[in-house]
């Protein structure tokens, strides 16, 4: 990517995937950043920061007290992984994958006691109706994130890539460095858990809008 490219065009290139036959618009910038060009690194991080933030916000929630730190951690991790980007996916996807991973780790590192208290308070809240209303978009995605918390780490990671980023199984296998059958197995077990969990909790199914 030319360094003379207008900023607005650069930004658009970052947030919008390239056309079908177009090269990844961030690839050359990523290479320059990996080669140690400071300006390229800053620019690259500025371009991917909004979608990275969006991915973390979707998993942590917009009011999570550690949202900003998680974003910074993700950007730091992306910067540290620049020289490992080999262009087998778009750089934006690469960055988002690290963001998802960071957000999942953040969720798992939360104080378990605080989480239990919050869940207990939510459970104790008087129900105004017997039927839980379907949740709004962000709430449903947040509910999915909470369900991911219940899964073993490897399963949660694979299912998050599969559902949130719609990554194909071979790509997930390649990116996390495990055989494709392992990924297939993890995704299957994760789906089985979610299926049983939702079926065992009619209110959850209703909240997710899956009660027909």
């Amino acid at each position, binding site marked *: 990517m030319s360094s003379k490219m207008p*900023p607005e065009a*650069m930004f658009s290139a970052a947030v919008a995937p390239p*056309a*079908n036959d177009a*090269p*990844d618009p961030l690839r050359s910038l990523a290479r320059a950043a990996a080669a140690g060009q*400071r300006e390229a690194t*800053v620019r690259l*991080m500025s*371009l991917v*920061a*909004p*979608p990275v*933030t*969006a991915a973390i*916000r979707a998993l942590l929630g917009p009011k999570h007290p*550690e*949202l*900003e*730190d*998680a*974003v*910074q*951690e993700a950007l*730091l*991790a*992306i910067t*540290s*992984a620049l020289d*490992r980007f080999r*262009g*087998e996916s*778009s750089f*934006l996807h*690469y960055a988002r994958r*690290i963001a998802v991973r960071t957000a*999942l*780790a*953040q969720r798992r*590192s939360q104080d378990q006691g605080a989480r239990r208290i919050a869940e207990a308070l939510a459970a104790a809240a008087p129900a105004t109706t017997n039927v839980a209303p379907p949740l709004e*978009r962000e709430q*449903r*995605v947040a509910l999915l994130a909470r369900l991911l918390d219940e899964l073993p780490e490897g399963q949660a990671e694979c299912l998050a890539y*599969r*559902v949130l*980023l*719609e990554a194909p199984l*071979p790509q997930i296998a390649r990116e996390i*460095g495990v055989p*494709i059958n392992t990924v297939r197995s993890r*995704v299957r077990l*994760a789906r*089985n858990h979610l*299926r049983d969990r*939702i079926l065992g909790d009619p209110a959850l*199914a209703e909240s*997710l*809008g*899956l009660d*027909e």
Partner: protein
Amino acid sequence: MKRDAVWSELHPEELLAKASRGALAPREDADLRAHLARCPACALQVDLRGEIDGALAPTALDYEIGARAVERLFASRELDPARAPARERGPRRIPRLVTRVALGLALLLGTSVAASALVLGTRGRLWDVADRREPGDPVGPARRASHARPEYSEAKPLADAPATPAPAKPAPAVAPLAPAPPAVAPVAVPQVTRRVVARRELFAIDDVSDHDKGAAALFGAAESARGQGDFAEARRLYAQLASRFHGTREELSARVLGGQMMLDDLDEPAAALRSFERYLRDEANGTLAEEALLGRAQALRRLGRANTEAAAWSDLLARYPRSVHAELARERLAALAAP
């Protein structure tokens, strides 16, 4: 959602992937619908697809938080290996003057260009801050080039993400500068959407060469070509996979996926049948055996070999009585048995 349904332990990943590409054949669409009616986990993925697209689209708040994070990242010299890791320090906050100016600009203009300025307008400021070095503490390319790269790799397993740093102040409440992306209605019937197509492109492997790539890369390239409808290229890559990486997991999987492509997309049932049978010969109990059995039966049907087709459906039912394809198998067996 029916709770008393008989469950298949399998979830149709291929069908879900094809649905997201809008590439389901009518029969596949029916199969997927049948599965979704019984499996809330997969139904949730399909149902949330449009919502996740919206949730992953950056909002004005994401622009602001992202810009601030970049500012903190570079200003706090966390890229400098001589400094302690970020997790050992509290976050260092930088005056938000430029961010606020850009935010004001965005509010005034109310356009996505202004929102872009929120990010990009900080660039000069970021560099200014980053270039403000303390004596004896340079932060330059040479230093960063030697920075340890501990965790993330595109091809290797990701290590655990860094530990959570000290709690930060809650993100300030900022009214959205631009309207949030419209929520997309839950998708009952898989359809191609612009976002889905765009995301497919996002994941496309567009620079895989034929040389010096492993089986996984070649397999991924073939899948990418197939996903984009370039079946000739996919066939070429599958063949190359078979010749160069015979017996690998990728090559074995490609026998089934290639067979499906030859059956559904290239109308070559004889070639598809050979591909499915090659898989079943070597992986009789493999993870794709059910799909291979299904493909074999469908290929035989297309070839008009009724007797062998019936045996193939029976074989599928015997080995996978709870298969999502069981109903189809029984229907075909009934039809074949009819006078």
